[in-house]
């Protein structure tokens, strides 16, 4: 009996030491629910911008804009130095000057033709760790598309996405090290990303199985081009205020405006 327990202990120890951290180097597909996306740059349909419909809009903010909270980086001098002129602020809620919201993720949640495989862009989307902040705070990618994770800081970071559908991973990235190419195989809106070395660092990645999504910027606007004619559920996601859905019908070459209003 003792030998059995010793054997189990040895097997556990060896498997712990030998197994990997679960990182997914592009273009290898992650495990998870649903069908895995094709590799970046492979075959597939592309949005028909000439004949397809366009949806534009703004994500408006209704109410008093919350005060942006100051981040305390004093525990890490390298981070403090990066913000010597002005302390870093939380990017959780940013209300633009025109009363619109920055970093809202807008995407076609449903309504696209079934069975269409959309071409995955071969260009990676950059996620930079700069000034001990993620730049940008929110990104959108297609499932299977590469994310180029960069460390521009003179300090160590770990990148730790916490998906529920895709595979979770956690890897360190010392200063000056090579960029990491990562991918998520399955649609998931949204995946939180954290740095456990700097516990204020937080980012979100929207992974979608098609190319019809956008992230609002400094003017709070979004544009989704090349949609096939049809009726769609358009969703906006915000880190603090959650999601809102709207139904919209578009025809060929038609342009429609659909705004969202987030109540503060």
């Amino acid at each position, binding site marked *: 009996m003792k030998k059995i327990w010793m054997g189990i*202990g040895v097997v*556990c*120890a060896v498997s*712990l*030491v030998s*197994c*990997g*951290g*679960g990182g997914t180097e592009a273009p290898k597909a992650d495990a998870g629910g649903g069908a895995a996306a094709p590799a970046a740059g492979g075959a597939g349909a592309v949005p028909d911008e000439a004949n397809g419909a366009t949806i534009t809009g703004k994500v408006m903010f209704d109410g008093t804009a*919350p005060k942006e*909270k100051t*981040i*305390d980086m004093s*525990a*890490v001098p*390298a981070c403090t130095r990066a913000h010597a002129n002005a302390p870093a602020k*939380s990017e*959780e809620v940013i209300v633009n000057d025109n009363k619109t919201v920055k970093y809202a993720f807008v995407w076609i949640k449903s309504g696209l033709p079934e069975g269409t495989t959309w071409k995955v862009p071969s260009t990676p989307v950059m996620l930079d760790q700069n000034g001990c902040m993620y730049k940008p705070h929110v990104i959108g990618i297609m499932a299977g598309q590469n994310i180029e994770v960069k460390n521009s800081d003179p*300090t*160590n970071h*770990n990148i*730790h996405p916490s998906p529920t559908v895709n595979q*979770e*991973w*956690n*890897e*360190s990235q*010392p200063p000056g090290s090579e960029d990491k190419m990562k991918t998520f195989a399955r649609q998931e809106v949204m995946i939180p990303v*954290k740095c*456990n*070395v*700097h*516990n*204020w660092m*937080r980012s979100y990645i929207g992974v979608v199985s098609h190319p019809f999504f956008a992230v609002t910027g400094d003017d709070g606007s979004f544009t989704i081009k090349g949609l096939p004619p049809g009726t769609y559920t358009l969703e906006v996601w915000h880190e603090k205020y959650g999601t809102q859905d709207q139904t919209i019908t578009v025809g060929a070459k038609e342009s429609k405006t659909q705004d969202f209003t987030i109540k503060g």
Partner: protein
Amino acid sequence: MPKDSSNPMGNAWLHRYSVLVLVCTFLLVIAGGLVTSNEAALAIPDWPLSYGKLVPPLEGGIRFEFAHRMLAATVALLTLILAFWIQASEQRLWLRRLGWMAVGAVLAQALLGGAAVKFVDPKPLSIAHACLAQICFGVMVAVVVGYALACPPEDQHQHWQAKAYPTVLAATAILLQTALGAAVRHNLTSAIPHIVGAGISTALVMWAGLGILIHHMEDTLLRRYATLLLSLTFVQVFLGVAAYMSRIATADDPQPMPMMIGFTVAHVAAGSLTFGAAVALALIVYRDARPANAVLAHGGMAVA
């Protein structure tokens, strides 16, 4: 050869050393609480090395996680020495077994911690890690208290079931509370099961503690430990409320705030002390409730 230890506390240095190991184990619990509260659990993505080195760059969350690992290694080594020492100098078989049980628990805890890093913080593993930490502390308390316990005189024999069950139940409830608390901290459940569990375990502690105070007020040892258990439980309830309120109050802050970290770590630490007090009380009650001959004849004494 084990020496005759019919006189408990015969080896004062061994007792002092076991207290030292207990204190280090308690510090390890606090270090673990600091890691979780600072959201630094995966600041070092590799194990057993740290950033591929023995000593990683000590910045940000890495400091908490690395200090936790170093303290864990120290406790493992101290516990191993303690087990060998008890083995060499103690006659009581149950105490020798308890020493090795502590070694097993600490090593299993290290493996669980490593697995949580390797498998990127799966919630069940993290909760098991928190619970086993509590068990490690409880076993160490049992070693320290058990070593100091004298065998009771013959005339103190009573029906142990009637006396020991409430304290055993209280200790078990506190351990389950640890699991629920860990589940809340790792976002596996809402706080409601933990709050309900707090009510149940407080009631059980009061049943055990007040029962002892009512019926055995004249027994100094029992009175002290029952009072300690009751006091720690009430402190723990207060800290639990404070930790919860501070979490709500700082929910919109961009990072864990010192107030929330302080109350949460204090809640974790007081939880361990409460569990330790319950284990100690159960052990004392059990000791008092058994005939001395039975203890010596069977060479063993169960631990709650």
